[in-house]
């Protein structure tokens, strides 16, 4: 079982420090709440990647460790370091108001992958074989993530994949100029090496029935993603020259499409629309526009993506709602209607309303409809389905109405991001393992450890964010000989510089109010209003700090308290405290293995 070179048992935590008496694991809801508020990047990550830890590892030039800390939860650091939607960066404390710009968390991840030494130091512990088997339908991010976890939890895993290569949307839905295939293949291989068997070219429901699988395996997990392109539902959608977005990208990826018209209109506001547009340019289109109902601000892609697309010459036509696709036989253009924004939905999505009598026409010879995807219906088989024939399941337990049949990933939730799919896959795996064995294998806990002051230098706080270098001038991206990855990656020096910017929010600073003499030396030396004169500390229902009630009235000052949600972990307060009443601890949210209780 250990033949493939994995360490038999490794520490699950990401620390280089040994476990010792000063280490504590907590499952107190207040501590989880603390992590959510105070380590905002980690809690913004659907997979809960321990971001400060991997950035710190990279700072220490431990590229391999940095990579593995990522890999524990997000499995494909080299891939996600390129194409992740980066919800963490939106929450990075360095991006708060006066502090500058977020740390380039994503690209540091890529640097860890780029510069790690060959070989693997596998950090997750493996569990003894359970003798049970699971079948997974689909080898996309959710399926692979579930397979990975089930394998290390001791299950025999078999994946059925309809395509000829594994990876699902990663391989077929993302163009190679954003994600080189060799990197993807290597990272998929690292998952499969756990002893997972992969059956390619098998279309479940067509080549083999779900019932058969249900009979052969202890459990079946459907993770077949969203491959059904959504339709505009307007006249003319069947004209020649009108393509569904996802199919277009997949066809190009598979090498079926080699040319396109000159004037291309793409409708849609997500990554697929952008991928289609940029692919169109690479296939020879001269004039490409992305048409959206709302504004640029509502686009569901990263800022970099918009910038690069515009650099390549793509235009964005806002406030334009497609009414019909025009043409006789072949597409000739789209008739749009102007829209007007109305109140946002409660979920924050912009809503628009067409304006009466505002129709206008834009000419085109190609139209790509990239407005989203949906799961494909399953033909026959067990389990409750919706009216389209899509298998239904509980979003929390992943269970369908048929015992032993589970659903995860985008198939369950509708289109999301890669990182969400991975998280979903892992959670489903945990659930299946629990259902099959009746035991819990791992639990999330807050690991608390006394810590020394860090070596962060104050001057690091004002380092500018290093943006991802891209291939410029733009024309160099269109050299025909080979695919050019547009983002060229950090140098190791750049990555190291950028890693200095992380505040290391996993450090917790605290004043012992019983020892404090209220001299305010810490406040005097604080870099911002992170230490407060406090009248009262209000708690939320979990018992975590909800609010520090500040006061300027000296008579009301009951305590001097460090607001960890404002703290940038510069360490100045610890250095100056006259009575040594400030302590530092390292707090990390991570999964730890649960040892099975022996019945003595």
């Amino acid at each position, binding site marked *: 079982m250990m033949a493939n070179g994995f360490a038999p048992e490794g520490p699950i935590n990401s620390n280089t420090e040994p476990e010792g008496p000063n280490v504590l694991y907590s499952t107190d809801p207040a501590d989880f709440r603390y992590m959510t508020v105070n380590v905002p990047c980690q809690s913004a990550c659907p997979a809960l990647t321990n971001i400060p830890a991997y950035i710190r590892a990279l700072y220490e030039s431990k590229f391999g460790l940095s990579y593995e800390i990522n890999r524990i939860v997000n499995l494909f650091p080299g891939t996600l370091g390129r194409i992740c939607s980066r919800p963490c960066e939106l929450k990075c404390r360095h991006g708060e*108001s*006066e502090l500058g710009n977020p740390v380039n968390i994503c690209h540091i991840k890529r640097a860890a992958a780029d510069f790690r030494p060959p070989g693997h130091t596998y950090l997750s512990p493996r569990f003894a074989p359970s003798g049970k088997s699971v079948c997974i339908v689909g080898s996309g991010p959710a399926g692979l993530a579930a397979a990975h976890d089930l394998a290390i939890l001791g299950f025999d895993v078999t994946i059925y994949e309809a395509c000829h290569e594994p990876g699902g949307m990663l391989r077929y839905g993302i163009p190679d100029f954003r994600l080189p295939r060799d990197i993807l293949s290597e990272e998929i291989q690292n998952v499969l090496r756990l002893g997972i068997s992969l059956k390619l070219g098998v279309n479940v429901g067509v080549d083999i029935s779900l019932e058969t699988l249900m009979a052969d395996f202890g459990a079946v997990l459907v993770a077949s993603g969203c491959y059904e392109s959504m339709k505009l539902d307007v006249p003319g959608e069947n004209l020649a020259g009108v393509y569904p977005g996802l199919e277009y990208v997949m066809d190009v990826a598979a090498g079926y499409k080699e040319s396109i018209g000159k004037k291309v209109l793409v409708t849609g506001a997500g990554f697929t629309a952008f991928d289609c547009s940029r692919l169109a340019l690479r296939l020879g289109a001269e004039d490409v526009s992305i048409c959206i109902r709302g*504004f*640029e*601000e509502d686009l569901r892609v990263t800022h970099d993506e918009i*910038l690069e697309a*515009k*650099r*390549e*010459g793509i235009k964005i036509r*806002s*406030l334009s709602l497609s009414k019909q696709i025009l043409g006789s036989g072949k597409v000739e253009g789209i008739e749009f209607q*102007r829209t*007007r*924004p109305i109140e946002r939905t409660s979920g924050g999505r912009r809503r628009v309303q067409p*304006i009466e*009598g*505002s*129709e*206008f026409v834009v000419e085109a010879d190609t139209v790509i409809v990239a407005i989203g995807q949906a799961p494909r219906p399953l033909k026959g088989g067990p389990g409750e389905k919706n009216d389209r024939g899509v298998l239904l399941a509980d979003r929390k337990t992943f269970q369908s109405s048929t015992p032993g049949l589970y659903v995860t990933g985008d198939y369950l939730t509708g289109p999301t991001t890669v990182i969400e799919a991975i998280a979903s896959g892992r959670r489903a795996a945990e659930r299946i393992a629990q259902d099959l064995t009746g035991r819990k294998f791992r639990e999330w806990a807050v690991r608390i450890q006394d810590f020394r002051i860090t070596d962060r230098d104050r001057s690091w706080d004002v380092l500018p964010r290093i943006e991802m270098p891209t291939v*410029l*001038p*733009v*024309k160099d991206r269109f050299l025909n000989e080979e695919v050019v990855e547009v983002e060229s990656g950090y140098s190791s020096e750049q990555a190291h510089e950028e890693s200095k910017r992380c505040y290391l929010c996993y450090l917790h600073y605290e004043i012992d109010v019983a020892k404090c003499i209220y001299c305010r030396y810490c406040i005097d030396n604080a870099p911002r209003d992170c230490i407060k004169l406090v009248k009262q500390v209000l708690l939320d229902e979990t018992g975590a700090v909800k609010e520090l009630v500040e006061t300027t009235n000296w008579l009301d000052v009951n305590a001097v308290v460090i607001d960890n949600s404002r703290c940038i972990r510069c360490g100045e307060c610890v250095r100056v405290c006259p009575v040594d009443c400030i302590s530092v601890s390292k707090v990390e949210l991570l999964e730890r293995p649960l040892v099975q209780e022996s019945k003595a």
Partner: protein
Amino acid sequence: MSVKRFVIIGNGPAANHAAKALREKSSESRITIFSKDPFRSYSAHLLPDFIAGLIKEEDLYNRSYAHYNEMDMNLRLGQRVVSVDFSKRNVILDHKEVVQFDGLIVATGGKPRIPEQFQLFQDIMLTLKTPLDARMWVEKLRNVESVLIIGGDLTSLSLTKALLKLDKRVKFILNEDSFWPVPLNEEIYRAVTDRLEQRGVEIVHCQRIRRITQLEENLLEVETDREILETGVLGAFFGLVPDVGFLARTGLDIDRGILVDEFLKTRFANVYAAGDCAQVYHPALRDYWVSIGHENATALGRIAALNLAGSHFEVRVEPENILEVGGVKVNTSWWTEF
């Protein structure tokens, strides 16, 4: 009643007329005007005259500091607003000052547009929007003889007039952004090129520009899909875009400009936008329009202010007033000025 605090962002014609109207309507209120530029309100249409040496820089400015003191307005020049918090009702300045408001008028006007594909070269291209830009042109023109203009908009045409007066050699690369905001069509293209050529301007025909390289301080090399050109200075004239980047993700509706209703009101109570940064839907155009020009701006500024002060004036603009250059006929009317 407590004193109202009005904040106006911008110091162009719309902003200044808004301020004036606000003061007329409420003598007690506190009016603060923020301008990111360090200079006073100026007449943009005179910039080419200044470059041509016909007027002095001082003549560009159309309001004295004393004026603001008399009107009891707090004019804050060179202070950039970087964000607005509409829930807390304050504006946040670049230097991290936070200023509360009861009413807000955004009148930031436009800024020169540089299409993304040219942004790499923007440091070596000159634009013309402010007196500072004009000073740079004056400085540059002392040492160069030839000027290449890419794009071509109304400003570039009046600049060309000034350049010809200064005996400079002028080349034009016209593209579809020429005559912004008018879409280019064959007819206009021909009329314009004929006229330009008559005046001794050389028209360069090409599809796209591949590369721009600075060879020496006053020598640039421009590679098009057809040829390689040399020029002393390069002007980029792709029209203006509303200067509203700082309002991104504040909750305002921003497309090209700030979307407002026919009363110039934004989504938020007591927040208005006026002038070149506002975008209003016009039924006859089947499109939103962004106002341009001094006349429009002053009128819009005034309407926004009066509405903020409690009135209910609707913006009524005839299509031909918006696009004065909309048809060939109108087009030649301004063209004859050249």
